[in-house]
């Protein structure tokens, strides 16, 4: 199964990156995921390893994953070490907006399956795909809300500081 969902966030890529590059924040915005735990010495960067699980139907699927691409503000990709075969990717791209601000187009991709599982594997992937797509869509929406709220609070704090400095 290959599932991808995307949306635009009203915040620059650096702000979105700050959230998605911090594994300790994943369970605050990922929907359907029951575990995202750092198991390597380094929490980020190429070679960082996480134990992740996502609830799909009657099981929590996932396993041990390793980050294989880490390009700040642009790409974060992982591949599975144990558990089901999977590859995932965060893709961030800057988007200039009409009001002069900068937004970020965020895409979350997940390719998962079990090699050699035959017809039933194909069928299971087709049946599980809508659930996984729903998890990714809700995760992105929660990420957007979290990032934009933080951005709003940061801007409000900056305005308060500016007013205080002016008076």
């Amino acid at each position: 199964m290959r599932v991808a969902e995307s949306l635009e966030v009203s915040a620059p890529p650096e702000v979105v990156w700050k959230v998605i590059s911090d594994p300790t924040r994943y369970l605050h915005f990922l929907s359907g995921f029951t575990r995202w735990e750092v198991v390597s010495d380094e929490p980020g960067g190429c070679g960082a390893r996480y134990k992740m699980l996502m609830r799909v139907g009657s099981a929590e699927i996932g396993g041990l994953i390793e980050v294989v691409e880490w390009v700040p503000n642009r790409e974060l990709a992982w591949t599975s070490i144990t558990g089901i075969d999977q590859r995932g990717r965060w893709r961030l791209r800057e988007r200039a907006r009409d009001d002069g601000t900068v937004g970020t187009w965020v895409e979350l991709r997940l390719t998962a399956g079990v090699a050699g599982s035959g017809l039933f594997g194909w069928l299971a992937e087709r049946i599980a795909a809508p659930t996984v797509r729903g998890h990714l869509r809700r995760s992105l929406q929660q990420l957007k809300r979290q990032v934009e709220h933080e951005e709003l609070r940061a801007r409000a704090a900056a305005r308060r500081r500016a007013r205080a400095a002016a008076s």
Partner: protein
Amino acid sequence: MEATAAQAARTNGRPPETEAPASLPTRLVRGVASQIQRRIPAADLDERDPDYIRENLPTAWLLSSLWFRGEVRGLGNIPETGPVLLVGNHSGGNMTPDTTVFTLAFCAYFGVERPFYQLAHNLVLSMPGLSFLRKYGTVAASPENAHKALEAGAALLVYPGGDWEVHRPSTDRNRVDFNRRKGFIRLALEHDVPIVPVVSIGGQETALFLSRGDRLARLFGLDRMFRLKVLPISLALPWGLNVGDMLGHIPLPAKITVEALPPIYAREEFGNEPDLDEVYDHVTRLMQDTLDAMAAERRLPLLG
């Protein structure tokens, strides 16, 4: 002369009876018993095949998610590494859907790389067409196999209630009944491993179980020949009236819910030489309380 005297002593002075040849049904049953004994595979933990399990996870997922709407809770209670004794209540006749649902959830959660074995009745492993269970890590229920699995650092799933519990009448579906079997506690103490109770509900709704038929089993001597304490009678698909459940049945699509409870470290909780009865009562009490709570959650039979 001496031989005659000895013969007279053996027969208590009565004239010796000539040994009657066994009746045809008895000979048939004995023949089947010896065939089954021959078919029981030798203990070999190496038959577990992680790749086979991984490749068949999607099939198990389809069965568990679509047919039984399986829900497994509390897997985080199971220690992440090392040997552990998972003690479950058993339901659903010979089809045991709770095992299917739990095995899938365990293998998906911890990964197929973690060694995981299940003890099953000899008859299950000797059934034609069920040899694939050995690749899942199912081994014949014997103390020897249990010791081997725990010594290898594996997670071991046991059902102390066995055939007695799995064929209990539907009226007792929400009752944990290990028939006072305490071997699992001795096993945990001997290897100093935690006991994780695994409580399941819904399995006993996959057919209408009428009676264990324990008297019938005794009458036919099944205990002596097959280690079978029961000859269950149920109403099940596709047979209608199903006696023995030897060929299995098509389980009704009841919702199966399983919950793993926090581990019990018997020596820490009950001292260095724990009283087996006390530990047994504690474990079964915890499981029964959980089962009662899970039963209270269910609104309708089958639907859950």
